[in-house]
């Protein structure tokens, strides 16, 4: 997936922005990433993709089963934390790897998330597995919006 930026000086120019990138210089024993999105929904999807990219080569995962997620929290930060924590819980409980995600976030009194994660049961002979994620941490955890781009920093416990 790529995000397109606005053209410069009248010339049509697109530059690809990574949906996420891993940060190597912090929390070296764990996995830290920064994810981006033009919308809050896209940010949540990209954070989920980064989380599962730590666990497996998602090219080897077929999205043939879905799990639905409904969450509510007071802040965007806490909602993102809950979303990733819920997916990590489902990974163990349902023994699944997720590859595709759709998310709808609404602001009422609280922020409300309705989402779906699609993937399949973990199969060691089919999936190119990487390292398990134990938990999402609050260490240096942040969600920001700058220049119309949402950005989140997340450290996962490995």
């Amino acid at each position: 997936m790529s995000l397109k930026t606005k053209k410069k000086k009248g010339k049509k120019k697109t530059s690809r922005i990574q949906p996420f990138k891993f940060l190597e210089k912090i929390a070296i024993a764990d996995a830290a990433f920064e994810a981006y999105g033009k919308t809050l929904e896209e940010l949540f999807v990209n954070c989920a993709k980064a989380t599962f990219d730590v666990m497996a080569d998602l090219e080897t995962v077929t999205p043939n089963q879905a799990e639905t997620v409904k969450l509510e929290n007071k802040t965007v930060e806490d909602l993102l934390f809950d979303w990733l924590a819920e997916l990590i819980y489902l990974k163990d409980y349902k023994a699944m790897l997720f590859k595709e995600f759709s998310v709808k976030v609404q602001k009422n009194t609280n922020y409300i998330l309705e989402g779906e994660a699609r993937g399949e049961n973990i199969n060691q002979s089919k999936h190119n597995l990487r390292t398990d994620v134990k938990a999402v941490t609050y260490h240096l955890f942040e969600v920001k919006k700058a220049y119309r781009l949402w950005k989140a920093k997340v450290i996962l416990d490995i």
Partner: protein
Amino acid sequence: MQYKIHKVKEGVWEIPTSEKEGMLVPARVLGTDKLIKEMDDGVFNQVTNVACLPGIQKYALCMPDGHWGYGFPIGGVAAFELEKGVISPGGIGFDINCGMRLVKTNLTLEEVQPKLPQLLDKIFYSVPAGVGCKGFVKLTPNQFREIMVEGVDWCIENGYGWKEDKERIEEYGRIAGAKPDKVSKHALQRGMEQLGTLGSGNHYLEVQVALTDQVYYPEAAQVFGLDRPNQIFIMFHCGSRGFGHQIGTDYLRIFGDAMRRYGIKILDRELACAPFSSPEGQDYFGAMLCAANSAFANRQVILHRIREAFSEVFKKDPQELGLDLVYDVCHNIAKIEEYQINGQSQKLLVHRKGSTRSFGPNRPEVTEIYRKIGQPVIVGGSMETGSFLLVGTETAHQETFGSTCHGSGRTMSRAEARRKVRGTELKEKMEKKGIVIRSVSMSGLAEEAGFAYKDISEVVDAVDSLGISKKVLQLKPIGNLKG
């Protein structure tokens, strides 16, 4: 470095309270000049954050294998008053009661080497490892709740262990005070099918040989079961799996709200905490002990599977093969222990996150079979460099709240390790050195390459010189199994 740090004595470095607003006690980082110089800045920042937590006693400590974690540094030790002090999930880690087990055999390198590939295949099959793996013990929710309370006792009653295993486990494999009603449904669902599994990351199971020329304390080595040259041991490292991880996550959220109510301010959300005596603090402690007991049970079931595998491959009873547990230590936990504070004996809540208890001779907490010599301390090194068995000391009780190092400590990010070596290449290199590898993930294997860690000898020499534990013997891997 951002902070002024001075050497108190050889191997002990101190950051005074004047270095950060809110520090209640100094921070002490242990290590040789080389280890301190190479330690990442995150350690110093995190250990000084810990020094700000309410009710902390004497010092916030970091062991010589310390590295940047989340909340507390890995290698962090902190003790808190029971009444006015706090309990923090970030001071224990998500993998509650992650720990080490060491098992002896009556076999020698010469006897095991010809059957090593077959043996590792068998164990690899019997002890599931890797992302989302499930164990072979099928439990009902009620049985899982029994495990939360009974720990290793449940395993022994259900045929997954020997009676004598119990006296070779920290806290005898069962800590009183577990409260299953304080555990969420999510945690129960997440952990119920994972009993007897190894996990992933830096968790491993190794077949090791004791190096005859690297026995530093022969009397202790003999008490711990060394009785022949080139003797084979089995060491493994794992914890409470998804169950503990979920309890950590659940209470991190609960404590976030509780802190506002109790007016506690912290420098990192991952240091979320609650007064130990508060309802939230007591609930977490009760839930944390459920995970601690389940981790003891997890390692016990793994030991059972190892015994079965050896028995099948060598066609002898596990008893005949001498597959006795040497010891089981926790290195991610909080426990109530007694220390002298201002000349008075006081019960404290000691948090150890990537640190091992190191109790010396004649302490009543040490199992009777080892009481004269002290508690075994198992320090796992990287898969290329080997591991150490040490013994606890009275000095640790005086200086470090009865604590020492737990491993060698990472120095390189996982991505950098992957860039430096491919998993298949590393496997080939290690097999040339005589170390047979079985790994679910080749990239996971590359992340655990020896060069990504500190020199374990330097770490172990540091704790030995400081006197907070004493080297007994060195073990080298000949077979490594990873998730």
